[in-house]
């Protein structure tokens, strides 16, 4: 019982953290049709920034500053690495994304000197709590709640505001919306800003749980979150969230079984099966250009 609870808890909190990353993937893909390979690394850089900022600043200052810098990083990446390639073939943009990911990882290696960095422990979130006999941290409990709140806020933003309307228009038809007078570039920037912000929040939750950061820390959660986004139907925010929770729980359950060797492989096998059987994912819109 206690074991089952702890597996479930760990799955849910992992899922929540993947969800925050997956939203970034799914929004960018919905608008630009680009798999932003660098997104996982933005997540890792956000964690590293928190490590360095909190070493010299109080938490009250370092936390907002970290969020701000991550948002700035996402914005700058889009402007520097993706915008110049807007008219280029899709493959070029994807390669550029891989290049940015490579650059961020190498920068992180250079700055940390290859040493793992310990994430500062945050008050409240890092404290222990026991749920149904399973010891865990408060962050595990907070994560799903926070994710749901953020997603509700995000759907409000997308459905009720002007920017949100523009985003939906751009996602539907890139060229036509441009003709209708929507400032494509600012809409894309807003998308990246939202995605990076959520990744920053996600990194705070994730690294509070698993406090050691190495340059490759973002790669695996990034890929998993991407699978979650595809699973839920890329372009759909609720889909990404549900997909992420399912992936997180599956991962936890497999790790707890005798097949733990294949916990990674399973995620990818699932991806291939979904792509082949139902390429639009659980909640994806029917679109002809995907398969």
């Amino acid at each position, binding site marked *: 019982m*206690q*074991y089952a609870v*702890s*597996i479930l*808890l*760990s799955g849910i909190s*992992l899922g929540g953290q993947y969800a925050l990353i997956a939203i970034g993937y799914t929004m960018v893909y919905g608008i630009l049709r680009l798999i932003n390979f660098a997104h996982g690394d933005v997540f890792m*850089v956000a964690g*590293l*920034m928190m490590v*360095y*900022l909190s*070493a*010299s*600043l109080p938490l009250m200052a370092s936390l907002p500053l970290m969020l701000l*810098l991550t948002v*700035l*990083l996402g914005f*700058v*990446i889009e*402007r*520097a*690495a993706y*915008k*110049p390639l807007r008219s280029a073939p899709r493959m070029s943009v994807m390669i550029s994304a891989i290049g*940015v990911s490579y*650059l*961020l990882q190498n*920068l992180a*290696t250079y*700055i*940390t*000197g*290859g*040493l*793992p960095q*310990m994430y500062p422990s945050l008050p409240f979130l890092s404290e*222990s709590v026991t749920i149904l006999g*399973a*010891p*865990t*941290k408060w962050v595990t409990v907070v994560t799903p709640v926070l994710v749901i709140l953020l997603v509700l806020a995000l759907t409000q933003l997308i459905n009720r505001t002007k920017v949100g309307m523009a985003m939906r228009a751009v996602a539907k038809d890139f060229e036509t919306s441009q003709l209708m007078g929507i400032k494509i570039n600012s809409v894309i920037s807003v998308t990246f800003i939202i995605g990076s912000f959520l990744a920053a929040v996600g990194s705070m939750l*994730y690294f509070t*749980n*698993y*406090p*050691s950061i*190495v340059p*490759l*820390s973002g*790669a*695996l959660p990034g890929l998993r979150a991407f699978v979650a986004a595809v699973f839920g139907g890329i372009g759909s925010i609720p889909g990404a969230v549900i997909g992420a929770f399912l992936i997180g729980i599956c*991962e*936890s359950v497999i*790790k*707890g079984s005798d097949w*733990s*060797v294949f*916990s*990674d492989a399973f995620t990818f096998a699932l991806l291939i099966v979904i792509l082949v059987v139902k390429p639009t994912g659980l909640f994806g819109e029917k679109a002809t250009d995907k398969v």
Partner: protein
Amino acid sequence: MKKFLAFALSCSLALTALAGCSSTPPSSAAPETGAPEASAPAAQSGDKVIRIGVFEPSTGDSGPGGKQEMLGMQYANIETPTVDLGGETYTVQLVYADNGSDSAKAPTAAADLVAQDVALVLGSYGSGVSMAGGPIFDEAGLAAIGVTCTNPGVTAGNDYYFRICFLDNFQAQVLVNFAEEKFSAKKAYLLGELGNEYDQGLISYFEQTFSGEVVKDSFPANTSDFTTYLSKAVAEGCDVIFCPVSIAYSTQIVKLAADMGLEIPILGSDTLDSNMVLEAAAGSTVKLYVSTFYQEGGSEAFDEGIKAYINGDSTAMTNNGGNDTIAAVTAMGYDAYYVALEALKAAGSPDPAAVKAALPGVTYTGVSGSIAFDEQGDAVRDTAYIKTADTANGVWTLETVQTAS
């Protein structure tokens, strides 16, 4: 113009990332190359120079361990910067090549050392890279002294690779004996990184030697969520957890165990003997035991000297994980340097072939015990120290000394 703008932006992208971290704590703002300051003025003396290659990872997941091992060599190099061969005094210079903990990059790193005319090579931390670089040294006729690469495959089939540490099978046996004697363990949980020959090798030996039942798990590279694995160990009712994983993972596992209030003792191999792991356990009730090559207090003079060195050099301090606890690999690196000097003295010249010929006959008593080589090139060693983390004071204390039996 547009291109210029985009270029400027891409530069600023790089800068943002740098700037984000520019408010670094003073310790890591300092330059932190492997090379100590001493190596720069060393060249000025203008007399004869002997180069010793240091084949160690300073990046990748073995990076922290590699850096600690290099600390020992650097300190030894400062302590004894010269060697007398045939009446002439040579200045010893350490030449570094980062193998990046990656066996795909190790051959070129090894080739880099060969091209730099070194007399012999020290390293590496991590067996995989040693095995990948080994044939390059073998072909170039360059002797290599493995410091803490414990996999049997390093010296097997390679005449030019020697090592001064014990082997995986010995280490696993020591830990099995310890687990059975101290905890009367009947069931053990074994956790290692998938595809890592160090982890999996030790786990296999442990499984073969252990008389009780085992539960085995492997996690994929770059995992950071170990909750499920530890919960499983609890649920299975295991008496001990054995996780011979690299420093980056072991800090996470130990930290998690500390947070969970895990009561099952954790047994670790030599990689866990790091102050970063110790720090992760600090202030908790976690029971951590590691087998290792050296226990602080083994040599007063060495302890004092290296602590002074680490405290006096901010780079060394960062590389040692921010405090002056001595890692066993540092002591091993220190000994390796002196074994290299002994080999040079025995050879009487810096010629790699002569050094290789002299090496099998070298004996040396270092801080980690006496060192001699068998016909395979492995060190003849029958002692391992088992130490435990004193979590209240944040230090290692000696638990027992185990010999092969």
